[in-house]
């Protein structure tokens, strides 16, 4: 579904992605872990071209997307993204946040989008918040709305960029529950996170990244139970005390 070949990215003189080669298959829940500054978020943001790769290829559904002439907007419509800081639109109600893109892009009528919006709000457990503004919500609620907003576009794949890192600890569970539900329903997901419990429980594959490279990749059992790479071992020993 997604193919990444020799992906490289630097900011000024700082090399963030050294050489990434990965394939993400349909139905996989790929959890990307690693120390901060290892390039996890940049890797994720290169997948929907929020960052432009310096070198290498990004292929989605058999089409290379980081070349001139590709309609990036069309590609992004099938790749939902959830951000660390939610990025809800503060001037719109929850329902308007959800319906904006599908209606603006002619995917649905306003009525269809609202119908879908109500279903999605039910899925994330926030039906009563349809008419609220983002400022009236807690962090955990905001993030669940942000997930619903992405899902409104019927994406084929969901990208999560540290979705729980900005949340109070007691809110993390609610968001992870929604993500688990998604995974269970077969959504293809790439999740950058520090939640090792989630990685272990929900991930079908773990990528350990460090210094702009995927150092090790494998099932949760392999990575958490029997890591091979010294860096992985060191990292896990620090986070799994």
């Amino acid at each position, binding site marked *: 579904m997604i193919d990444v070949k020799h992906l490289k990215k630097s900011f000024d003189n700082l090399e963030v992605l050294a050489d990434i080669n990965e394939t993400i298959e349909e139905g996989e829940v790929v959890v990307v872990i690693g120390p901060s500054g290892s390039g996890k978020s940049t890797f994720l943001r290169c997948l*929907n071209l*929020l960052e432009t790769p310096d070198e290498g290829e990004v292929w989605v559904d058999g089409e290379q997307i980081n070349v001139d002439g590709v309609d990036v*907007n*069309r590609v*992004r*419509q099938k*790749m*939902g*993204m959830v*951000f660390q*800081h939610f*990025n*809800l*639109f*503060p*001037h*719109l109600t929850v329902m308007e946040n959800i319906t*904006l*893109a599908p209606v*603006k*892009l002619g995917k649905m009528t306003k009525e269809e989008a609202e119908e879908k919006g109500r279903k999605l709000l039910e899925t994330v457990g926030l039906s009563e918040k349809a008419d609220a*503004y*983002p*400022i*009236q919500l807690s962090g955990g609620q905001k993030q669940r709305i*942000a997930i619903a*907003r*992405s899902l409104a*576009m019927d994406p084929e794949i969901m990208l999560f960029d540290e979705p729980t890192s900005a949340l109070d600890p007691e809110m993390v569970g609610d968001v992870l529950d929604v993500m688990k539900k998604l995974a269970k329903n077969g959504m293809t997901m790439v999740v950058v996170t520090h939640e090792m419990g989630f990685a272990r429980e929900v991930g079908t594959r773990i990528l350990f990244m460090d210094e702009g490279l995927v150092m090790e990749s494998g099932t949760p059992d392999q990575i958490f139970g029997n890591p091979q790479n010294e860096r992985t071992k060191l990292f896990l020993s620090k986070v799994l005390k």
Partner: protein
Amino acid sequence: MNGFAQFQDTFYKCFIKDDRYTLMLDGIGVTIRVALLAAVLGILIGFLIALCNLSKKKILNIIGKVYTDIIRGTPSVTQLMIVYFVVFASVHLDKWIIAAIAFSINSGAYVSEIIRAGILSVDKGQTEAGRSLGLNAKQTMMSIVVPQAMKNIFPALGNEFITLVKETAIVGYVGLVDIQKAGDFIKSATYEAFMPLIGTAVIYFVLIKLLTLGLAKIEAGLRKSDVR
């Protein structure tokens, strides 16, 4: 004659006698029309120039910069006279419309800076969220960034509008009779200085006070989504 009777007498001479108040009323009409049209066109120009300045295209940056530089570097009276006597010399348009265009060109330069700052004040994550949903740059700008920027822009834009109303007091230079010029005419006709000039000041003041109140109302409406 006591002070109050004298005041009444001068007031009568300046504003009632020979229907002089109609001159002033017409003047108020001119000021309002010029300022309103100039404000609307000024916002349009300002928005375009702001987009030029924010664009990634070098040539647009240069256009925006040169425009702002020229306008800020020359007096508005000079600009008004150039627009009126040079640019529109052979064009048949109502005087007040030409004046409004001149003021909008001037105001646009200041408005562009206000809008630019307002757009930059919107968190980058908002644009990223919009783009990640598949909206294109223009859709993201118009339905996500600009509405939020409006809240930050509005107070400064209101200030600019108030400045604009007062700036129009120079339209007498191109033969329009606005509030200022009407006061001036009354001054010449009556040989009174105090009453017509203070009257002019009071009319401007009331006009701007009303404007300020109106702007505050609209601003409160814009802040609706900030209420918890």
